[in-house]
């Protein structure tokens, strides 16, 4: 985890609503750490968050810190404006985390849009929007 995990993109991303189910995920970045829902009984990772394990139905669910590193499972360069604040083109990616068996659909920043490839190593960073810390990813600088 690099020290400058909070990024200022110069615009505000739409702020997700905080609910009992999702507050832990959307605020996890306050200390620069990505956390993913995990079952404390059987170890199952889950995303998006949920209050019960999808494998063993345990309610012992925690928001568990992960390394925040992973690689690109798939990606796309979006050319169309879907949000009044996010100017295209930009890269949307599915990221497979290194140490948790989940794939996050997120944005890839701080990279050339034509320099992304499947398998590319990336790390998490966070954009602040209101009370939330939106997880984004960027290439790992060797």
């Amino acid at each position, binding site marked *: 985890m690099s020290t400058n995990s909070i990024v200022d993109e110069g615009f505000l991303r739409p702020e997700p609503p905080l609910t009992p189910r999702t507050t832990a995920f959307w605020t996890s970045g306050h200390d620069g750490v990505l956390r993913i829902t995990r079952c404390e009984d059987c170890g199952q990772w889950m995303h998006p968050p949920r209050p019960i394990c999808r494998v063993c139905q345990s309610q012992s669910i925690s928001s568990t810190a992960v390394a925040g590193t992973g690689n690109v499972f*798939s990606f796309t360069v979006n050319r169309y*404006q879907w*949000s009044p604040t996010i100017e295209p083109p930009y890269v949307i990616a599915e990221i497979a985390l290194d140490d948790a068996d989940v794939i996050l659909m997120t944005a890839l920043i701080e990279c050339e849009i034509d320099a992304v490839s499947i398998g590319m190593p990336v790390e998490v960073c966070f954009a602040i929007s209101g009370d939330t810390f939106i997880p984004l990813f960027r290439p790992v600088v060797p």
Partner: protein
Amino acid sequence: MSANFEASAVVSGIGMSRVGRRLELDPWLLTTEAALEAISDAGLTTDDIDGISTYPGAVWSTPGITGAGCDDVRSLLGLRTKWHSGGGERPGQLGAVIDAMLAVHAGLATHVLCFRTVWESTAQQYLGGRSAALNKSADGKILPFGRELDQWTAPYGIGYPSHGALRMQRYMAESGATREQFAQLAVVSRANAGLNPQAIHRDPMTVDDYLTSRMISDPLCLFDCDVPVDGSVAVIVSRTGTTDSSRAVSFQAIGSAAGVDESCSMMWSRTDLKPSDIDIAEIYDGFTIYAVEWIEALGLCGNYEAGELLEGGSKISLNGEIPMSTNGGQLSAGRLHGFGSFHEACLQLRGEAEKRQVPNSPQIAAVTSGAESFSSALLLGAPR
């Protein structure tokens, strides 16, 4: 195999309204055009209709994605129904047809009017494009009345095409399929649309046209996307034996499981028919990648072999081994959301598809709707 519940019902009539871009017509008018045509096609009158089923009904969604609900149609046509159902959480858009079959099988209704009305093309002028439906306020906050699911996409600017693009990118990497192969879905659909007077885009398209069209969300380009339109399709699901059997399209099997693969597996488990029995495939092509996923799930080729099947386009053309999207599909005939494909399958099985009629009297059609966990697959049979 003993008769499944599918044998209880038939498609007794079909109807389609005017279809077009920016028709500037009331979607209730379109709905009644399709409904009355279907009722008449079945040899029935409005007095005979005792059930209604639709997707998704009178709910608020992206602009123009729904043009009428059950109550609207009951009131518009003066129907006296015993059963109705409309909603979005179904096994694909054609889940509305499956529901009608169940109602007929259960004896709750004898003739169910199933319909799907869209008026996106006109509504987007009045209400904004699909991005308007992400329910953001001016300062970018996701409003509380938006769908809860939007929180996973709106902060990242993820629209519908990017969902398809992510799947397409990964599929191409895993399978080795090329954009030239994907292009054949668009090119063949367009050629078929040229023979369909009701299709939206009828000018010929080449592979080069596809390759040079603008990117929407790489690698997904404009011609990988279906076309929002105004239009309505209605079909009548009747109890078997209550209408003219020489024009009744049969249900051979349905699959309603959550998932494209799961729906197809379920469908094949309910019939002795095999993928090689499919004469035509009217599959859901909201994006070309969705069609590719359906092609493989139906068993028309092996996993990651769709690129080979599509290569050159000849196998999926009207005279090919497995004609697809014979009306132009949603890519060129317009996003009638599964119901357009269903209508076309019935026309083909009845031998009434005129200039685009597939030769040698197709007997079995596969029709699919939806994508991912919102999915259904149906096998239809020609009248006997």
